[in-house]
């Protein structure tokens, strides 16, 4: 179903309103929200707030910046850093490679950041 939603969004160059998407797909708005959340998580679409007939909804657009059509290789990205072995011509020693270490540490630090921000959010609420 998420493929159908993506295809529908992709086929509309100016994007589609979320309130139109669920009607077009013949599903209810709650299911549509879940599909949209998944597509956003996979970086396949972007969205911005828009009002239609006085009701707040979202305009969904297909994300062209995603390198892979499926977005399934996102795990090769650590925060802002693409995995360092791509195109690397240096002697390969994964045990001691500084670039690989940097990439792994970026993920560790990124996760700590997430934990920290969640703690801050929890403290605020």
């Amino acid at each position, binding site marked *: 179903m998420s493929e159908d939603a993506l295809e529908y969004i992709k086929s509309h160059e100016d994007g589609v309103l979320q309130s139109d998407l669920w009607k077009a797909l013949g599903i209810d708005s709650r299911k549509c929200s879940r599909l949209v959340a998944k597509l956003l998580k996979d970086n396949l679409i972007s969205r911005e707030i828009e009002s239609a007939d006085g009701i707040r909804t979202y305009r969904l657009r297909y994300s062209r910046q995603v390198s*892979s*059509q499926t977005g399934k*290789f996102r795990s*090769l990205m650590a925060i802002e850093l693409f*995995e360092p072995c791509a195109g690397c011509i240096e002697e390969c020693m*994964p045990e001691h490679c500084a670039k*690989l270490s940097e990439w*792994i540490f970026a993920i560790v630090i990124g*996760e700590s950041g997430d934990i920290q921000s969640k703690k801050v959010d929890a403290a605020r609420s």
Partner: protein
Amino acid sequence: MPSEEVTDEHMAEVTGISLNTVRRTLYLLYEHRLAVYRRKRDPDSGWLTYLWQLCPQNIDKALESEARRLLRKLDSRLSYEKDHVFYACVNGCARLVFDDASEANFICPFCQGSLEYMENNRIVQTIEQQMKAIKANL
């Protein structure tokens, strides 16, 4: 890079990136079948011009091959992390395995700061999670 054919000189001019870097990048893309070129000879000067074009249809295959390569490297790194005890400089200069740290009398060889035991559970977990995520998509 536009979808139509373009020369390396034009790319360097438009992007402001040095011609050498543009050429090195294009050959890397070519090796991974992500770009192709066509040679055109100037009838007057006899010089060859290389016209480059991207092959975005091959990106998934190239990424899959990169993912498999990375998996093998992460596997080696994981074993290394699991099999060793690490000591790190308190000033963040270096991380040494126990034998090297002991040989250095637990003094950082770069800044003479103290080397202290470093827990690497988070690193092991992160590598395992990352490997799992990559495997799940292959």
